[in-house]
């Protein structure tokens, strides 16, 4: 059966996103997946602006704006308030940027995940503080230019692995998704909607403005991010069962991805090689994790044994 993206629009034109905004398209697709019985919690992020200033509102679902670091707990609060009033059929989704998720909001997110509050938490990741004018976040990749990591001293630390942090909470569902694979993205949100507990979905959402690239390259850059293994598309259930959802037929070199973005234009050949090595390693590690069905181990809690396997793998990869 042919998959079709739902026709019903819950996001209207007139929003104020930049041309080619990955975050805007992501919201449009996600709401198509989740449907009308959804409430969205928005902390400070580009979407604070995109949805429109009071009294404008470009989404056809209720939105609660909240402070920067509070997306997860505000969603938990909404869910609790609805539940106690018997309104149990509403999907509550926190929708935060990478800064609001990996940096300032990680405490509240970890709290909600530890309690396994029944929310979907979406991080739309554009790899810097774009709303404030392209400052580095802990999601900014190593080597990237931002206004606080100028070309002479580009970001020297690798991107924080938020997926592994969330997976470590052993929540029922963690997944990555991006816009060049809309069917995968929609399926993941529908799956998340059907699961009780905390669901974390990490959407790779390019920012042409902040990445110094042409807006019409947005979908292409998403595809390249996956094909170069910069941003693999996978999911992890209950913190142990990994599945790689998109296995690129053509593995592309990272240079193809980097060269389209002005934020990487200063990189030397050597630096590009390092990025390639790092992408290769992470991909191998992920493939290893996905190849192991830890749910079939003798006891579900053979953590030590599994950790040792992983350590062996890491040692091997480093060699």
């Amino acid at each position: 059966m042919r998959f079709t993206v739902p026709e019903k629009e819950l996001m209207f034109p007139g929003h104020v996103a930049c041309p080619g905004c990955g975050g805007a398209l992501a919201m449009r697709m996600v709401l198509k997946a989740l449907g009308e019985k959804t409430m969205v919690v928005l902390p400070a992020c580009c979407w604070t602006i995109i949805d429109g200033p009071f009294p404008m509102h470009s989404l056809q679902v209720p939105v609660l704006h909240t402070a920067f670091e509070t997306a997860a707990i505000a969603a938990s609060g909404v869910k609790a308030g609805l539940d106690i009033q018997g309104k149990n059929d509403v999907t509550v989704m926190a929708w935060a940027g990478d800064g609001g998720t990996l940096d300032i909001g990680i405490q509240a997110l970890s709290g909600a995940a530890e309690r396994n509050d029944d929310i979907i938490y979406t991080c739309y990741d554009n790899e810097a503080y774009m709303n404030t004018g392209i400052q580095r976040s802990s999601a900014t990749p190593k080597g990237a230019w931002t206004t606080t990591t100028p070309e002479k001293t580009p970001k020297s630390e690798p991107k924080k692995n938020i997926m592994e942090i969330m997976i470590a909470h052993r929540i029922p569902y963690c997944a990555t998704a991006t816009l060049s694979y809309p069917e995968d993205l929609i399926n993941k949100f529908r799956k998340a909607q059907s699961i009780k507990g905390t669901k974390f979905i990490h959407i790779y959402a390019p920012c042409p403005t902040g990445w110094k690239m042409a807006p019409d390259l947005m979908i292409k850059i998403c595809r390249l991010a996956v094909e170069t293994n910069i941003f693999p598309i996978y999911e992890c259930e209950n913190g142990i069962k990994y599945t790689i959802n998109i296995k690129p037929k053509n593995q592309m070199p990272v240079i193809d991805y980097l060269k389209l973005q002005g934020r990487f234009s200063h990189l030397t050949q050597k630096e590009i090689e390092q990025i390639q090595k790092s992408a290769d390693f992470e991909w191998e590690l992920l493939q290893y994790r996905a190849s192991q069905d830890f749910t079939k181990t003798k006891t579900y809690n053979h953590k030590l044994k599994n950790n040792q396997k992983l350590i062996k793998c890491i040692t091997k990869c480093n060699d």
Partner: protein
Amino acid sequence: MKKVITGNHAVSYGALLARSQVIAAYPITPQTQIVELLSEFCASGKLNAKFIKVESEHSAMTACIAASATGARTFTATSSHGLALMHEMLHWAAAARLPVVLANVNRAMGPGWSVWTDQNDSLSQRDLGWIQLYCESNQEVLDTTIQAFKIAEKVLLPVMVVLDAFVLSHTSEPVDIPEQVMVDKFLPSYELETKLDITNARSYGALTNPDHYFEIRYKIQKAHNEALQVIKDVDNEFYEQFGRKYGVVEAYRCEDAKVIIVTSGTISGTTRGVIDEMREQGRKVGMLKQKLFRPTPIDELRSILYKAQKIAVIDRNLSFGHSGIFAQEIKSTLYGLAGAPPIYDYVIGLGGRDVTPDDIREIIDNTFKAESPHDTIIWRGVRL
């Protein structure tokens, strides 16, 4: 039903009887017993509420705000550093016009670490739009907690119920716990007019440009002005049902007083005894207990204080670089009234140092004797 309970448990019973629907709290000494007992109420099914055991006070206040935005009745309790951590979201609750109720146990701020009482935690949250009510006894704590929900829901402003660390929070007193059916009559379930509603796709708290923001702030002030009457009405209704009332301020033996001593919290109880004793000696002294701090009960303060020859304000708090905060408030309230009495500002008992009847006697004696309040602050009990 009379029961001997602590001030903390008086708060818990208040939140129980008010049928709180969502509670979110984080433990901090000396507030912990409030949330422990509420946890037990929830666990036993006595209270049908969602209790979110959050990872910080910042999240506690956020959860209350978010749940309140759906129309649920919400409650939290904290103290000191916990309240300070909430600060951003305390702004949010007030500006979002959500009737969140919070009990704050007055505890001094660090460093050095102190778990003992003073008022700098709650008074640092003065300018946010919260109603603040200070309590003197455990009975008052319970009654005020119940009243707080009714006030909050009528004026759509958050309400802070304040009680002193240990002197109230951990001290047991006999408290008359009202019947649930009576409280239900006084405080029925409420319907928030504008709330998160799946059939009505509105956005709350959106970017607000200068064309709209100013008016929203004007309306918060207007709500505070209206709250003054609402608080009095709620107190009267409470009296009709339960036979107890507190007033926004209490004038104790002020009628012909030459010196009026202004107090808040448990220092009022200590002062009450000293006033009785001095009255027996024929000294014309009275006490004004300020229960309602925000909104400022300007008319009540003026009409009572104006008649005195001298006013002594007791401040268990300090705005560094200026003076005691209640004294500043009283000064600004009386400013411009011709012949207003001079105001003596006594700063005392910071970090929970005992405030004894002797201290109050000396403050009164000193005020009678003093020619004018030369110093901005008169320090009581500082060992230099």
